[in-house]
């Protein structure tokens, strides 16, 4: 088992190198840089801008820039934001955690809703309850998140005023206290619920179809012929086999959530990396953008790693000697 994990982690190294090259190239081929916006500014002449470019290293040959960037990365230095004039790492830290909390909350709520619904639909397939659940699935699949989230915000935030409409915590509360954490959770609930209600579709549909599929398998007949009661056939044989693809998707789900929270964070004015990402793109703050793309890339790799590890834990056939 450990050998498998170590080997799997070693495979990540070349993946990371390729990822970093791609991210760097993408950042370089984008037109303009942080200083292009200043060209027309009165009082700033072009030679000053050129000087600034030289001091910032933008005029260096590409491979030197890349190596410098990698050197910084390996030391935990993600560069400096041109716009905020602060280290990117500092900018990221607080927001990254907010995004992680939000993603975790969405994931938790998604499974809380999707697993019981998926099991019910699969077990009683073609019944009325199954049709209702599949109907719910079609509706949520067809609903765009940015409209649904706005609607949720309007109804529960502004009209009913059950939830706060923005931010991640009340600024008057002392960080670290119990009420501060409760307030953070309170701020999380509405965006998380909006995300989760739409994110359930994949899990429900997969679980339902897997259960219907597994029900027909020969080993279920074997179990029945042993005299195993139906409820036990579900808990011991059908469910575990049906959870395999869900487990396999857990890692990808995490990736999807971190990148997918861009809409949610902008709509709920939630200070996470998604919001920072949009701002930085519009301000051409490329050191932040590349750092963020890099972070989400790494999150993707970790997600797939998690998927593989989880799958190898639940499925003995995957375990590589």
């Amino acid at each position, binding site marked *: 088992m450990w050998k498998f994990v170590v080997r799997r982690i070693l495979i990540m190294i070349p993946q990371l190198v390729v990822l970093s090259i791609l991210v760097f190239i993408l950042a370089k081929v984008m037109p303009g840089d942080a200083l292009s916006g200043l060209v027309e500014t009165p009082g700033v002449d072009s030679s000053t801008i050129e000087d600034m470019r030289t001091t910032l290293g933008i005029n260096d040959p590409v491979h030197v820039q890349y190596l410098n960037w990698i050197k910084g990365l390996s030391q935990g230095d993600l560069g400096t934001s041109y716009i905020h004039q602060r280290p990117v790492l500092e900018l990221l830290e607080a927001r990254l955690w907010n995004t992680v909390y939000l993603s975790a909350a969405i994931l938790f709520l998604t499974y809380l809703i999707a697993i019981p619904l998926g099991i019910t639909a699969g077990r009683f397939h073609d019944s009325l309850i199954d049709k209702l659940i599949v109907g719910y699935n079609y509706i949520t699949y067809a609903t765009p998140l940015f409209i649904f989230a706005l609607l949720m915000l309007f109804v529960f935030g502004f009209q009913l005023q059950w939830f706060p409409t923005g931010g991640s915590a009340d600024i008057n509360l002392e960080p670290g206290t119990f009420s501060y954490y409760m307030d953070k959770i309170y701020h999380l609930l509405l965006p998380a619920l909006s995300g989760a209600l739409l994110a359930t579709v994949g899990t429900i549909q997969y679980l339902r179809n897997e259960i219907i599929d597994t029900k027909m398998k020969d080993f279920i007949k074997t179990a029945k*012929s042993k*005299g195993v009661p139906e409820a036990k056939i579900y808990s011991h044989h059908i469910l575990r086999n049906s959870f395999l693809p869900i487990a396999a998707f857990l890692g990808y789900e995490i990736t999807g959530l971190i990148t997918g929270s861009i809409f949610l964070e902008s709509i709920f004015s939630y200070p996470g990396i998604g919001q920072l990402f949009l701002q930085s793109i519009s301000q051409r703050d490329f050191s932040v953008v590349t750092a963020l793309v890099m972070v989400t890339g790494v999150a993707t790799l970790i997600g797939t790693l998690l998927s593989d590890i989880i799958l190898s834990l639940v499925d003995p056939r995957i375990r590589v000697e």
Partner: protein
Amino acid sequence: MSNDDILLQVEDLTTSFRIDEQFYPANDHINLDVYENEIVAIVGESGCGKSAFGHSIMGMHHQEQTKISGKIHFKGADLLSYSNTQLNKVRGKEISMIFQDPLTALNPLMIVGKQIEEGMKYHTKLSKNKRKQKAIEILNEVKIPQPERVYSQYPHELSGGMRQRIVIAIAIACEPSLIIADEPTTALDVTIQARIIDLLKELKRRMKTSIILITHDLGVVSEMADRIAVMYAGEFVEIGEVKRFLKNPLHPYSKSLLYSLPSKNNQGEKLHVIKGVVPSLNHLQRQGCRFKPRMNGTDDSIHEETPTLREVEKGHWVRCTCYKHFQIENSHQVVEEEKDDVFQGQ
């Protein structure tokens, strides 16, 4: 064999499946007695209703898609009147099943030891340790080398033949008095087949179990079974002792099946071919002799209008009178004494 020895008595069993909102019988008013400590083979082409019969006995069919009528007497009770919960007390404990494909009949995520134990959990009061001990004993009985090690292996770590032994181990775990073996050797290659057959015979001898052997392999039948019941289109067309049947098959369908196999009596000749295929349930003509459409150039007068299974000599039953007039074309009559050997190794 007297009536006291009857273990299972199937009476007028009709099993119908739903196709497009209509029910069609896959087993049509069939009767069969299974005696204690005997192996009855049920043979026929694919789609004749053999498996449907085996599944009916254990109530394995999907309830909404199936209609069953008749009686299945087993140890003084009618299994068809049992609820699913009551049947669960019989399944695995009194009657168990061996499945065709050992690759799919085992749960891929459960170690094989636990799969063997599972039945005991519901049928016995053995403690966890005792169950494990028993499971290892059974693994030993089905001749698995290093049973302690195999106990905690997953199905994918075992070969096909080993897996079939596990499937058999599951079936005998609670020492049932009847085992329904649904094509137990079909998915295995020939050398493994022979070993599995030997194992089943030995287990039957030692445990005094009756076996209903569902197969389309007459070689397996000649090696294992005491009696044979030939099924065609949901009906038994001939029932008799295997030895006598192989020497002297009566029903046209039985004859055709036998002569379509290569043997030393038809060496160098074209094998007999039964024209056509078994009609599907919703296209089957249920009037008169069901095999008539597949017989070559026989006139209608030789068939009965409502054929019934008739005892022509003691213990040998045949359906329809057409057997009296049927000859296999271009084929030597096979009446030699060594008929038994002919099918060895097929």
